[in-house]
């Protein structure tokens, strides 16, 4: 009886299965690329099905590639600062010239030093934003938030959440201690241990996107270090008091890029996908994804986005923000391991 019943359900569901496409494009992505609103126009236009797999953190992405065979993946989203790491291990294919409309880009986020290696371009930046301080302006004094030091002042003890990603938060702790992200090496890292532990002691939780949003939106915490527009934008309609700022010490600039994976059997289609995502329409959809918002790298997306959306993204403030933000730290393997060890120690204590 159960068997028959289940078969009936299965048969019913099979009828509702996905439409058939001529081809597949396999993409290793972050969650903001999973929206049907972003993928469907491309799928229809090219009669292709985009299969997406989310990953978290460059190390995990590279491990996934290592365990795959050539041809398993066609495109991937990768932190712009980590493109070098992936190229070094032979995972990325050169990007055909003219794939991304870089002439229309915000010049600060071209990041040629990072996506171009020995004269060959491997990736196109697609989206950027900031890891700084997000807060509930009805519960904290916005004036305090102009300095990172407020988080260590004791005034907000027990009302702070830490975003659970080691690179940006260690970067911010560094900025507060006067260490630029480019100088964040193993020796500098040891000096950050005490301030990091103090921050943990002053905080209520270390949480992922949803945990942080929940805590901030429900007033369980009032300040989130590591947060930014990408986290508060989707909650804007619900709680307009959620705000973010780049304090005087600076903030961290995150930039994600798209690249063709070496060994793909569909390099043209992969390039078409990158062309689509970096086009003004693709950029606007990506910027306002349901997972998180972020600034489009292509300025021309401004013509597609509504004024309200641009307000939330703080389109007009970007020039100033970009001069004050620093890129993510780019640790070598040993420093990266040391950073993760430090982060684990922080979580565990």
């Amino acid at each position, binding site marked *: 009886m159960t068997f028959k019943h289940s078969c009936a359900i299965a048969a019913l569901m099979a009828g509702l299965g996905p439409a058939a496409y001529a081809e597949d494009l396999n993409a290793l992505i972050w969650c903001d690329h999973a929206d049907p609103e972003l993928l469907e126009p491309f799928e229809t236009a090219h009669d292709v099905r985009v299969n997406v797999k989310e990953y978290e953190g460059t190390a995990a992405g590279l491990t996934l590639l290592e365990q795959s065979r050539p041809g398993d993946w066609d495109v991937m989203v990768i932190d712009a600062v980590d493109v070098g790491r992936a190229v070094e291990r032979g995972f990325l294919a050169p990007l055909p010239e003219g794939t991304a409309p870089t002439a229309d880009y915000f010049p600060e986020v071209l990041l040629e030093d990072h996506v171009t290696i020995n004269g060959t371009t491997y990736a196109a930046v697609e989206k950027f934003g900031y890891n700084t301080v997000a807060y509930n302006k009805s519960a904290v004094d916005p004036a305090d938030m102009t300095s990172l030091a407020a988080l260590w002042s004791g005034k907000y003890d027990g009302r702070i959440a830490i975003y659970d990603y080691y690179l940006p938060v260690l970067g911010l702790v560094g900025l507060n201690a006067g260490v630029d992200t480019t100088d964040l090496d193993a020796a500098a890292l040891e000096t950050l241990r005490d301030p990091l532990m103090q921050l943990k002691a002053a905080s209520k*939780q270390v*949480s992922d996107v949803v945990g942080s949003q929940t805590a901030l939106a*429900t007033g*369980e915490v009032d300040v989130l270090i590591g947060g930014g527009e990408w986290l508060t934008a989707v909650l804007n309609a619900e709680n307009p008091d959620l705000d973010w700022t780049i304090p005087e010490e600076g903030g961290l600039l995150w930039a994600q890029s798209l690249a063709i994976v070496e060994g793909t059997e569909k390099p043209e289609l992969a390039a078409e996908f990158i062309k689509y995502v970096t086009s003004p329409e693709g950029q606007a959809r990506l910027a306002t994804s349901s997972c998180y918002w972020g600034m489009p790298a292509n300025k021309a997306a401004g013509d597609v986005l509504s004024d309200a959306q641009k307000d939330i993204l703080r389109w007009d403030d970007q020039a100033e923000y970009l001069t004050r933000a620093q890129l993510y730290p780019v640790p070598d*393997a040993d420093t990266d391991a040391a950073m*993760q060890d430090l982060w684990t120690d922080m979580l565990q204590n």
Partner: protein
Amino acid sequence: MSIEAQEKRQGVALVTPALLWTLVFFAVPFGAMALMSLAHLEGREIVQGHDLGNYLRIFTDPSLRRGIFVSLEITATVTVISVLLAWPLAWIIATRVPQRWRRMVLLLAVLPFWTSYVVRSYSWALVLGEKGVVMNALVGLGLLAEPVQIMATRAATVTGFVHFFVMLLTLTIYSNLIQLSPNYARAAQDLGASQWQVIRLVILPLTLPGVMTGAFLTFVLCIGDYITPQILGGNNELTLPQLIMLQLGRRGDYPMASALSIVLMAIVTLAYAASARWLKMERV
């Protein structure tokens, strides 16, 4: 060929597929993992080897070592609380609830089993938050002056776990209780025992095998779970499964993840050895 030999041959033929499956997809992978635990990560590459470096680190690195204790403490707390809550519940259902309501009450008791496991943990996050249902009610009724923090603490993790295991244990203890002949209790009462004495001296010892089996299952499932502490614990301390997933997800350190898994496995084996004399695993 003798009938007995033929019987044996057919018996073996019937068992073989299941044994083969267990060998190929359980024993062999386990061996592969044990081997991997002896390798190590050099830079970002896995270097095969056979040293005990990973194990040494687990017992010397304070953060990793603490993971073992965090896991043990949480699991022990959960197991004890769950048994203490579930036993009376099973007893009440078995003895106080009228026969015709029992199935209904039991079904109701396991109702939350039927929602998705991941969502169940998440729904506790909504209930236990400072603006959640519980705090709202307590403050609203004037029982609390202001909300206290439960979410993102060990208490939240324990609550989520206990919720699940009370359901599981109530079932195992209940099925144990209804198998007991009422004659035992009656005989004891005839001999002048009070109701409390009957429970303590007669019924409780008789349900020990069921309780121990359920408690062991609770132990195994609880110590190996990733979801509940990850969603409810607020990352303020890390259990072994969280440490394992951290090694996998963030660093791609398979050797260390494997070594931590072997340690987890060893703990469960020790627990099994300690409680084996009361367990009836084949009768679960």
